[in-house]
């Protein structure tokens, strides 16, 4: 399960852990040298409020750390996707 072909992911639907639609995967940004997967480039859903996400033209950029699972859908954690501040605040609360 852990190994996936990149072309299988193209145009895959992206969902958040709260069940809401985020959009459709457009591209993945990787680091050539370290082979690390860095971020997802997503064409956002019409209903999504993109103001809290990092934007690049018509697309939004989510850090790859926000990915929770990839199978029939790509599931992302919105708190991590909106930036690193959100999970840090949660840790302080705990």
């Amino acid at each position: 399960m852990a190994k996936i072909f990149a072309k299988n992911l193209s145009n895959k639907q992206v969902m958040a852990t709260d069940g809401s639609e985020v959009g459709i995967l457009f591209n993945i940004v990787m680091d050539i040298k370290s082979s690390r997967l860095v971020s997802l480039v997503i064409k956002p859903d019409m209903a999504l409020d993109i103001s809290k996400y990092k934007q690049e033209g018509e697309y939004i950029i989510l850090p790859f750390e926000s990915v929770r699972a990839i199978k029939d859908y790509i599931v992302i954690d919105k708190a991590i996707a909106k930036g690193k501040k959100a999970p840090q605040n949660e840790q302080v609360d705990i």
Partner: protein
Amino acid sequence: MLTEMTSLFGLNVYTNSGTYVGKVSDLVLDINERKVRGLAISEINKDLFDINEKGVIIPYRWVITAADIVLIRDIFANFKKKTNTEEKEV
């Protein structure tokens, strides 16, 4: 160096000694490790791969760099040396 994955598709793959290996047709991703594990290569150089398959998957650790072409370590030279020494031993 950060690159969008789709920009790698279709790039020619060469070894650092200049041998054509093939074309990048896909990437193998390890989601748990958040890493690229391999390159799926099509239109392979039949002189390097003595197989009838359409393509091969090579481990990403062989990749030196990638921009206009993908450059990989010349592991094929090692294979040739090994077979030569084996022949000598025989």
